[in-house]
């Protein structure tokens, strides 16, 4: 038995080390390929420049950073009313009821839908609505991308939040009820404050997911290399510029795309790290 134990230990250790080596390899690959762009533009000039000129080989990432931040922040704002309601529904009001199980499986289903399907829905269904509303001439842009992103991240934000809300100790809630508090007051004064940092962490995770989403955004944002001037304006995100241009890119342009990939890697990694850290504090 002890022998088997040792063997299993060895296998697990190898698998774990392999993941670390793999991640390190990805970072190494990105860094080594980004070197040319760093050397020619300098890090701060690269992220502060709005120029993306293939003809003269001058590249800057500001429009894409702006597009990424705008779409992700808007997506979080749009998704809060829905995902918070869903998580209260599943975690508090209808906890363990049949209806709640049904709703949470539908939400989970949403998480499993490939992003290209969301892209199609945005392109063929939502975009004509925005055009009819007169928001813009062709519908593409930050607003369209953000709305679809918001729908895509609802499951990430709501499932985890619901768990944190369900974790609020019953004694606390019962205490509040015994003092004559209504349902709403219990949620406002007890559940939300207690589960608050957990909910916050789940929104940060959802934010990380919105930052890196590629396919649906590429289909909907309009792919123009400018800083969006308003919500109806078109733009480009860090993920979508890579998806659009890596195919025929070479030399300095490829290196510039690698820098954007590296930035995206570190931004999403740190967002995830922050969320995990907050959750650890909560669980303690």
């Amino acid at each position, binding site marked *: 038995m002890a022998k088997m134990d040792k063997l299993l230990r060895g296998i697990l250790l190898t698998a774990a080390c392999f993941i670390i080596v793999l991640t390190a390899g990805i970072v190494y690959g990105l860094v080594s390929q980004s070197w040319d762009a760093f050397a020619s533009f300098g890090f701060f000039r690269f992220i502060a420049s709005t120029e993306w000129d*293939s*003809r003269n080989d001058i590249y800057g990432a500001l429009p894409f950073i702006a597009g990424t931040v705008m779409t992700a922040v808007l997506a979080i704002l749009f998704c809060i009313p829905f995902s918070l309601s869903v998580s209260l529904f599943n975690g508090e009001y209808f906890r363990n009821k049949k209806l709640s199980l049904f709703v949470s499986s539908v939400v989970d289903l949403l998480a499993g839908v490939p992003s290209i399907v969301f892209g199609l829905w945005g392109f063929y269904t939502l975009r*004509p609505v925005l055009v009819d509303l007169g928001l813009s001439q*062709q519908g593409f842009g930050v607003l369209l991308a953000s709305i679809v992103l918001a729908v895509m991240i609802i499951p990430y934000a709501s499932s985890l939040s619901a768990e944190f809300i369900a974790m609020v100790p019953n004694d606390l809630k019962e205490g509040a009820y015994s003092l004559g508090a209504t349902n709403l007051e219990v949620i406002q004064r007890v559940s939300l404050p207690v589960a608050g940092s957990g909910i916050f962490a789940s929104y940060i995770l959802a934010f990380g997911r919105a930052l890196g989403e590629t396919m649906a955004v590429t289909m909907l944002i309009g*792919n*123009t290399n400018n800083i969006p001037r308003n919500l109806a304006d078109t733009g480009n995100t860090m993920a979508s510029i890579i998806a*659009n241009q890596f195919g025929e890119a070479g030399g300095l342009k490829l290196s510039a795309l690698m820098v954007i990939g590296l930035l995206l890697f570190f931004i999403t990694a740190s967002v995830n790290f922050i969320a995990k850290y907050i959750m650890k504090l909560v669980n303690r």
Partner: protein
Amino acid sequence: MKKIALFVLLVTLLASCGGSSQKTASVKISGAGATFPAPFYNIVFRDYATASGNEVTYGGIGSGGGIRSLKDKTVDFGATDVFLSAKELSEMGAEVIHIPTALGAVVLSYNLKGVKDLKLTAGLISAIYRGKITNWNDERIKSLNPGANFPDKGITPVYRSDGSGTTAVFSEYMSKVNNEWKESIGEGKSLQFPTGVAAKGNPGVAGIIAETEGAIGYIGSEYALALNIPSAMLQNSSGNFVKADSKNISASANVDIPGDTRVVITNSPNPEAYPVSTFTWIILYKEQQYNKRTEADARALVDLLTHITGPNGQRIATKTYYAPLSTAALEKTTEVINSITYAGQPLSK
């Protein structure tokens, strides 16, 4: 017992393998390069394979990749939409020749209810893409199309978000004939436009146009013709407004073609020509004896090229919505194929 049975099985398998390969004795030809002619090549290569018993494989990896693969000698021929510059030719190590196989064009497709046979000039296209004309009821568009009824509808110019030969051909033409375009947008595979939306690939651009009233965008003719997407008539260098069909695209190559076939045929002087047309080429080494290539390998390759540029191959080009080579182009192409040698000896019969 089991081992013996396995051994017998193995021997029979090996024997059968050996037998079959001896029987066919076919030559394997491999190529890689441009994606633009890939639909044509896939069919014409299969057609050649059935006719000759030789095998042809083709990888649509982009023109740049095709040139690199030929240079690395990992393929027997490359394919490119842009002919090699003098500098690129000198870097290939030995003499490389260009064989035009078909023509394609870039068309301006649009979505405007009730407007058929839209006429456009390079000046108008330039003004639309530079954001100087923003509505379809602009006087400049109306005066060029007196019969048509233009709605009060904003124009959404659509362009390619990825680097592409389509953008390169279109912008080369625009820069050649319109100074404002040349100075603001310029030419290249991947460009910055001051207005409009962008999408990936011909299908991306065509999809946006199909779903957006008032949109206009440039797409490859092979894609537009295959799907029957309406496109504008453009004014050519003789002042005629011409449709992008197989005949008019071919006509743009009915001009003086240089001996090496390396020529840009946009804005062709031929009065019937559609102005935004281009050749697509297969490139290969003129001297075929390299890297242990046998004379049979070289002969099969010449055979393949003769098949593509012959009547059967060109019929397939038309069927797959490319334009066939013009008489002038065919003449020069045959000369180039005849110049291919093996160990210094010409290969053609």
